[in-house]
């Protein structure tokens, strides 16, 4: 008995921190989402139980549905398509590129990933703004410049997120590709398989589990992007780039409706948990 207690002791500090600051807020949010807790007014002094009112409000609100659609677009375009495809292509090309090209490409792509997200936001603001570099290039080749952050805000932040996140997918796929025995691909080449055949029938099937893991991880990361969008557009113009985290922030802190903001937090958490559980299922057999 004493032995067992002694063995658990090193886990105590971590467990306490996690319980108080991670699982505590999650449990509290399950309660708060059903109340009218707010920053000021009646709900601030005495919050009341309001049942599912916050959730019905969400599902009947245009602002909420708008941000769900924008979040879907943002996640699909910037993570599932953009980061994933670009990261995989880079990892595949890097294997055949000569050393200087590989070093230069790696440094630039990883550099974009290492920079803090607020800095990345400012860099892309500068690139896409009305007087920015993109318009300067477009004007030089005779195309019509426009204010990208106003005309296509959600696409603008998606592209910025591709820039910022591609390195992660590239690193995951580089590691996965290096685990494929070269003999297998070379045997296929000797047997006359074309590059495309080798890619789709050998390489990609062999890294399938890495592709799934990567998709889960980048989806989870993209669902929580806040600083990048906030520095570039603040969710605007209007609500045209207001993804769920920004909508939640505005409702809870600008409008002071903590209860409603918490209800949105719960929905984000549920979506995140589903992805996290899928991710767990994929890794769990290896976990002892």
């Amino acid at each position, binding site marked *: 008995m004493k032995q067992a207690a002694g*063995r*658990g002791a*090193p*886990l105590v*500090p*971590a467990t306490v*921190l*996690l319980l*108080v*600051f*991670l699982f505590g807020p*999650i449990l*509290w*949010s399950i309660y708060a989402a059903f109340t009218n807790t707010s920053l000021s007014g009646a709900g601030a002094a005495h919050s009341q139980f309001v049942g599912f009112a916050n959730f019905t409000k969400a599902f009947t609100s245009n602002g909420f549905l708008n941000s769900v659609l924008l979040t879907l677009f943002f996640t699909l375009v910037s993570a599932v398509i953009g980061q994933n495809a670009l990261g995989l292509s*880079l990892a595949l*090309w*890097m294997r*055949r590129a000569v050393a200087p*090209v590989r070093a*230069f*490409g790696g440094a630039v792509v990883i550099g*974009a990933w*290492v*920079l*803090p*997200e*607020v*800095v990345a936001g*400012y860099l892309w*603001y*500068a*690139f896409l*703004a009305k007087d920015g*570099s993109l318009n300067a290039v477009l004007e030089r080749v005779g195309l019509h410049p426009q204010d990208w952050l106003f005309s296509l805000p959600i696409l603008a932040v998606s592209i910025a997120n591709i*820039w910022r996140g*591609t390195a992660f997918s590239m*690193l995951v796929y580089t*590691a*996965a*590709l*290096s685990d494929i025995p*070269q003999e297998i691909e*070379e045997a296929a*080449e*000797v047997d006359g398989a074309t590059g495309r055949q080798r890619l789709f029938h050998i390489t990609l099937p062999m890294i399938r589990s890495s592709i799934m893991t990567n998709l889960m*991880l980048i989806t*989870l990361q993209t669902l929580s*992007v*806040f*600083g990048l969008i*906030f*520095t570039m557009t603040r969710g605007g113009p209007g609500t045209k780039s207001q993804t769920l985290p920004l909508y939640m922030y505005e409702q809870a802190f600008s409008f002071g409706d903590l209860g409603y903001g918490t209800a949105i*937090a719960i929905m984000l*958490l549920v979506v*995140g948990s589903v*992805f996290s559980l899928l*991710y*767990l299922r994929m890794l*769990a057999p290896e976990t*002892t």
Partner: protein
Amino acid sequence: MTDLNNRVGATPRQQPEQPVGAGRHTEPDRVRPLEHTPVTKGSTTRVRGRLAGAIVANGGVLLIAAVFIIPLLWVILASFNRTAGLTVSIPDHWTLDNFRAVLNTDTTYRPMANGVILCGGAAALTIACATLAGYALSRFKTKYKRPFLLTILFSTGLPITAIMVPVYGLFVQLNLIDTISGTMLFMAATGLPFAIWLMKNFMDSVPLTLEEAAWTDGASRMQTLWYIILPLMWPGISVVAIFTFVGMWGNFFVPFVLLLSPDQLPASVSIYTFFSQYGEVQFGQLASYSLIYSFPVVALFLFLSRKLGGAFAFGGAVKG
């Protein structure tokens, strides 16, 4: 020690001297005796196909790098340009004026110091707790081990952004809002799942024999951890520490929500409040401040990638 370095998250195959796929260019004969057979039509098309593949690969990497580098060029060039605008342009007069303008207590020194205290303290706390927990999870067999590990792995995926509204509510009730210590504790907790996970995997790679010898000599568990494991583990611990710190240093949302007073804000938030408050933004100053703020993480990352033997080895750590 070198062995441990290699094991940090990746296979020893991924050394910089032996980059991924290098074998295919340098020693093709070893595994492909068939190519020595007299020239056939198949082998020439294969060579031609390989050449085309190499052109596409090099061109693709260069093209993406060229597009990716434009925003990076802006921040570097604008920071040395007194009249910097938003377009990438070579400065007419290279100057350090932008750096001089932002290097003062309010803009740079205090936010950077706050960031070091906040993120350094939180990372230290995370590492201390994760080392203890990782040791227990790696060495002891208890019935709680698997559920604990699965919970940890599950928590690494939770979107921290989502819980900031409830955390704010909780902090108001606990009177922790706008305190560096409260924010530090929360950041330490958010860094824990990933740190524990990495730490446990590193500890698994330290052989048990040395500890058994120490136990035989009468050392306690904690003595073994302190005198045997930690000295062997320090490369792994420093990797986890740098990852944790870099993640916290770049985090904007957590301090943005939990800290309110301007003199407590770390660099990640002050860069936003400082440059979005005033109508006329000095873009050159914004660029040079961005460089100053980014410098610690870039430096730590360069240090880390040299240590890991090329940044690519990191991918293995992500795979878990």
